[in-house]
């Protein structure tokens, strides 16, 4: 092939050769990863299948008929989980923001509020969720102070109490990461303390901590399953009932898979958003 004359539209011979090389490299690496994945999967599969107890485990954990039989009940339970999750997310957003804002208040007047918020976050970040669930789910109704509410209601409350503590800490870090000049600039425009928080500080804080918040959301998505300990017939509880009826653990596997499917979109979204945020920061954006 004759070498082309150098001009600014056609790529040079050197560049063409480089491109061809890169193409060959790409094809090769795709082929290599494909082959190695297949080999790896086959090895694992053969190892597991040839274990002495495999047939027994397959029957009691991966029985398709049992899965199909359990499906309606487990799905119905999952719907309960989703409802609880939806309410809890709103509750956590509100209480978490409130706690974070309380902790950033300055001035001696606010000392009691600040201290209370700090004590709250310390307490609920330390307490295991399952203990909060038992205490709130069985303890609070026992006070007979509130109208009788369902276990689902108290389970939701317990989730909100625990996760608000985490989320408020994340928020607080975000609020403190907003440059102090931004606050001064807002105040010097005549915005009140509340307006400064609402219009200037919180929106920037939320942007900074969105990936962390999304991670907390993913964690909460699966912890909703714990409300089953209060007797709420959610996906986990439904699976437990089905398991007890058939002496077969497949419903648990089914419920687990459904939880994973529920979480996947959010997990992917978190990865995508985090990558985008990093890219923006690298081109010099502030937010």
């Amino acid at each position, binding site marked *: 092939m004759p070498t082309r004359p150098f001009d600014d539209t056609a790529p040079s011979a050197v560049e063409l050769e480089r491109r061809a090389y890169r193409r060959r490299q790409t094809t090769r690496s795709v082929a290599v990863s494909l082959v190695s994945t297949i080999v790896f999967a086959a090895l694992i599969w053969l190892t597991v299948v040839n274990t002495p107890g495999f047939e027994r485990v397959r029957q009691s954990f991966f029985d398709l008929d049992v899965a199909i039989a359990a499906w309606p009940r487990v799905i119905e339970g999952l719907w309960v989980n989703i409802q609880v999750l939806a309410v809890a997310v709103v509750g956590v957003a509100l209480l978490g923001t409130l706690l974070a804002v309380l902790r950033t208040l300055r001035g001696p007047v606010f000392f009691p509020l600040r201290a209370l918020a700090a004590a709250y976050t310390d307490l609920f970040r330390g307490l295991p969720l399952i203990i909060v669930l038992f205490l709130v789910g069985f303890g609070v109704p026992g006070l007979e102070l509130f109208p009788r509410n369902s276990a689902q209601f108290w389970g939701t409350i317990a989730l909100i109490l625990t996760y608000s503590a985490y989320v408020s800490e994340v928020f607080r870090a975000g609020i403190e990461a907003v440059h102090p000049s931004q606050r001064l600039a807002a105040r*010097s425009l005549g915005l009140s303390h509340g307006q400064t928080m609402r219009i200037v500080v919180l929106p*920037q804080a939320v942007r900074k901590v969105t990936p962390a918040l999304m991670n907390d959301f993913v964690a909460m998505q699966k912890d909703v399953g714990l409300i089953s300990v209060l007797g709420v017939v959610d996906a986990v509880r439904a699976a437990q009932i089905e398991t007890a009826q058939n002496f077969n653990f497949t419903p648990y596997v089914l419920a687990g898979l459904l939880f994973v499917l529920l979480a996947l979109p959010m997990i992917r979204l978190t990865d995508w958003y985090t990558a985008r945020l990093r890219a923006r920061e690298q081109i010099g954006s502030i937010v």
Partner: protein
Amino acid sequence: MTGGAREAAAGIRPASTDAVLRLQGVRKSFGATPVLRGIDLEVREHEVVALIGASGSGKSTLLRCVTLLEGLDDGQIFLRGDDISDPRVDADRVRARMGVVFQQFNLFPHIRVLDNVTLAARRVLREPRASAEARALELLDRVGLADKAREYPDRLSGGQQQRVAIVRAVATSPEVLLLDEITSALDPELVGEVLDLVRELAAEGTTIVMATHEMAFARDVADRVVFLDGGVVLEQGPAAQLFAAPREERTRAFLARYRGA
């Protein structure tokens, strides 16, 4: 840019004094370190006052006290005769009557340029969005930034950002514009465009108090230069006089460091 309409809106009557801003014996310490040790200063309508002084002499502190972002230890500050250092005054109301631009991080990065400019009018003065935006666009157009109105601030150069910050500060027709070293974070080639805007505002009669290290600009634009040293106003006078023939030895020494620079 008439102050009259705004005063009427805020229900404040101009007092019978021609000083827009008056500081009387203003003191401020941080812990055991006194920064301002009795500042007396008067700024008249349409006057441009440059605050100069060594780094750490308290120029920023002084401006922050005026905007009530910092409380006073003693003394009084009057804005058109109203004692704004009185703890009973509504500080947010007072701040809305001034325009402030800092060294950097003035603009809010999460809202567009136009929203930055109209924020105070909409949220503090409760002006309808349409009229606030119309005026903001006019102002942005004047400084050649109308095409950036829908952009986010991080898409603008540092000089453009500072010009927007100035536009935002004057958008509500403040009684006094306070500028704190607005060009010191900029690359040298961007300083000119920002100072040109200040020069224009000064020519239009805006009352300005600016802390600055740009001596040439201060000499050129300021009606009066105020030299802060040791927590007091050591010397002040018309720009030409103070630069050409400073009376105090310390002023001379300070200015000598800028000669030739």
